[in-house]
């Protein structure tokens, strides 16, 4: 079937099968591979996107369900050039190793700071505990969130 999606402010059309996830359609059909697939069952947060401003795992949302809603992916946070303050903070704080978890963490952090511009340590732990990172040990991710909160 043909669906119309509002992704990063653009109206995009895609031919999808009924069971296809939003993550699959973003990555495989719309040329937006920034959101990562690391488990496909809602356990790692690598596929985090915003759906009408709410944080969701794109692997758990059907593409068809996203029709008529605004989708923002990591590619849409900052526009064509430049960096969103959260992206800049991740790069500057060294919160990135292999970077496979980074798009998901960046989107999750942007969502957190949107609702809570000055989160406490515990609030950061709470908000980011659904995003797995196997490399960094998370310490510099804390630094990045605090850095972004201060900017």
């Amino acid at each position: 079937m043909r669906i119309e999606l509002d992704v990063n402010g653009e109206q995009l059309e895609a031919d999808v099968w009924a069971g296809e996830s939003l993550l699959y359609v973003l990555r495989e059909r719309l040329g937006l591979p920034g959101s990562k697939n690391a488990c496909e069952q809602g356990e790692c947060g690598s596929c985090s996107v915003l759906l009408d401003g709410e944080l969701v795992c794109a692997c758990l949302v059907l593409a068809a369900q996203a029709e008529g809603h605004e989708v923002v992916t990591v590619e849409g946070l900052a526009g064509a050039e430049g960096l969103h303050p959260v992206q800049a903070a991740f790069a500057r704080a060294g919160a990135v190793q292999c970077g496979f978890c980074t798009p998901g963490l960046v989107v999750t952090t942007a969502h957190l700071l949107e609702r809570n511009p000055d989160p406490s340590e515990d609030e950061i732990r709470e908000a980011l505990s659904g995003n797995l990172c196997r490399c960094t040990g998370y310490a510099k991710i804390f630094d990045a969130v605090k850095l972004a909160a201060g900017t």
Partner: protein
Amino acid sequence: MARLIRTEKEVEGHYTEQWIVVDEDALDQWPAGPLQTVGKPAPRVDGRERARGEATYTADIQLPGMLHAAVLRSPHARARVRSLSLSSVLAAPGVRAVLEPGDSHVLTDEPGYHGAAVAAVAADTFAQARAALAQAAVEWEVLEPLLDPDQAVEKGSLVSEPNVSERGATERGVSEAEAVVEAEYRTQTVLHNSLETHQAVCVWESGRLDVYISTQFLWGVRATVAEQLELPPDKVRVVCNFMGGGFGSKNGPGEYTFIAAELARRTGRPVRCALTRREENLATGNRNSTIQRLTAGARSDGTLTVLKGDYVNSVGFEGWSPSTGGPMELLYACENVRVAEHGAKLNTPPNAAFRAPGFVEGTFGLECLMDELAARLDLDPLELRMRNYADSDLVDGRPFSSKNLLECYRRAQPHWARREEVRARSQGPWKHGMGLASQVWYGGGGPPSYAWVRVGSDGRVQVVTAMQDIGTGSRTAMAQIAAEELGLSLDRIEVSLGDTSRGPFASISAGSSTIPSMGPAVRSAAADAARQIVEIAAQRYHLEERVLSLRNGHIVSADGGSWPIEEITELLGEGQILGKGARGPNPTGMRTLTFGVQLAEVAVDIETGEVLVDRIVAIHDVGRVINPLGASSQVEGGIIQGIGHTLSEDRLLDPGTGTVLTQTLDAYKLPTIADVPEIVAEFVDRPDEHLTNLGSKGLGEPPIIPTSAAIANAIRDATGANVRSLPITREEMLRALRAAREREGLERTAETVGEVRSA
């Protein structure tokens, strides 16, 4: 001039002798300490691409007409395929080709572990490939699996001959001891779970195979694929520009590459074979579980008289037996040491290298044993370690190229002095304590490794080498090294890597070897380019070469002259300066190792068995540190993995059938940001004066090595309980607490009896 040299190379404890060709003069090392760029914190040169989601991983490669493969895997730990029919698979929608046992050496009709690849299919979409596989008609003959490692050793089911090594006389060592402790330690099977799963995209073009793969060793994949497919190596191109983690599990091509290559050959289309998370947790390797039966004996002053270790590595159906006894052989100046390692061949998924394989497990046993010995002797654990400090390598009597473990211990002291204070925090059921453990590992790297440095007329520099950055920040470190040598700022350096057709041979990124192998090659290539710039400048300004050098983007002369480097490079027009560099030999007759110590502060709830890690201090000696920001991130990452290994991660098997129960990230508990303690990372930042033109060793592996033992020793300090089995679940914690209470009870009874007798 090209020089032919015979040298020794070590990767993860395996030494090989080899000839290398080095064609430049050795450079003197830079002075110790932070320089202009090297030794100063540098954010990733590619941080922006990664943060914007623009970095292209293997998972993101899209080629026109690309098909997707799915793999039929054995649901049994040991079975035989009685019959297999793929005709309905082939007839399913979207299917383009199927493979069965016999079509590829990676497919088997006698699977020896749950998850072994049996058949494969390529279809237009992955969903179609998966759906088609469900149509496969397989009749299995299920066989009895061998799962018990001790039984395997008894029956002689081993992957290799037992590895036994002995120095001195352990019998005498035991009789000379005034205190002897014997204990059995166990470590569990741990899964890598890199976030990017194992995968490859293969495409044939006029008899040439392009392999896009998530890998730690481009050139190893090239060699193995070429050999297996009987192609000249230059017909195989391997590409990996960005890579989503490996931790040792992505050193070779893996079955998925061969499946993709064969399906691509048959269909004439590009084929992706990407594992799902469940497959990842079955069939991509693991850190094998171990059983360690250990003995330590010492005189009352703490001098070790004997160390003995009998190790069983549960290797699995294939794989190799890691050096679990390595730390026991290397860490202490004990004259009488005997180590025996057995690699049990079982019907379980094969192991794979995982961040310091063998040493992580072996250090847990050894360093817990040392603390149990310290308790028996009533000695301070740090004191016991210093008393048995090894000044040279006792395995074969070689001097160390550098060793600053004593300095690590010295820096540990102020933290160690907090012990009373930490214990005093105990309140109600929560007991606090502190423990430490030492670290030894390889990490010297070696030749061959090559790099080129190109300087364009705009004065910008490109470092070209076909290495990979597996996430550790090698790209940034190489840029820093080139910038330093050329006297340029970091933003003028570009690093081009990740493609065997675009750069020279580069080292594997395993065994903590990327920086010590590649860094010196990049520096020598940059020095070659710098020398050429100086030569041209000397002619341009009518000066002698020896009075000129490169600094802060300028060519400066001894008498105070200074010209922007572009003044020279723009003379090149369309031309370029090309510098070439090679990794020189390792120091002959010396042992190059990395060292460190970690201290853990924990809190244990003795009623529920809950363990919390409050703080870890890590002090490591890896020679010169190139990028302190990247280095501390390595340490933090290693420690969190170590905490996962210690407290939560456990690959579980069904004890009856041998099938893997923990296939998802729900079932297999990785640490999250909620588990992060305070981490203090320090480095003894002293160049190894004998090692290369940099004096740098590797840091990828050292930080994970001592974490488990430091935590277990802190638990002992807090509670008196000897935890001897990983992971330290609540059950294990409560078991250890019960055992401690019983032991105390017995001791008290013995004391009372003693008092009565002496009365």
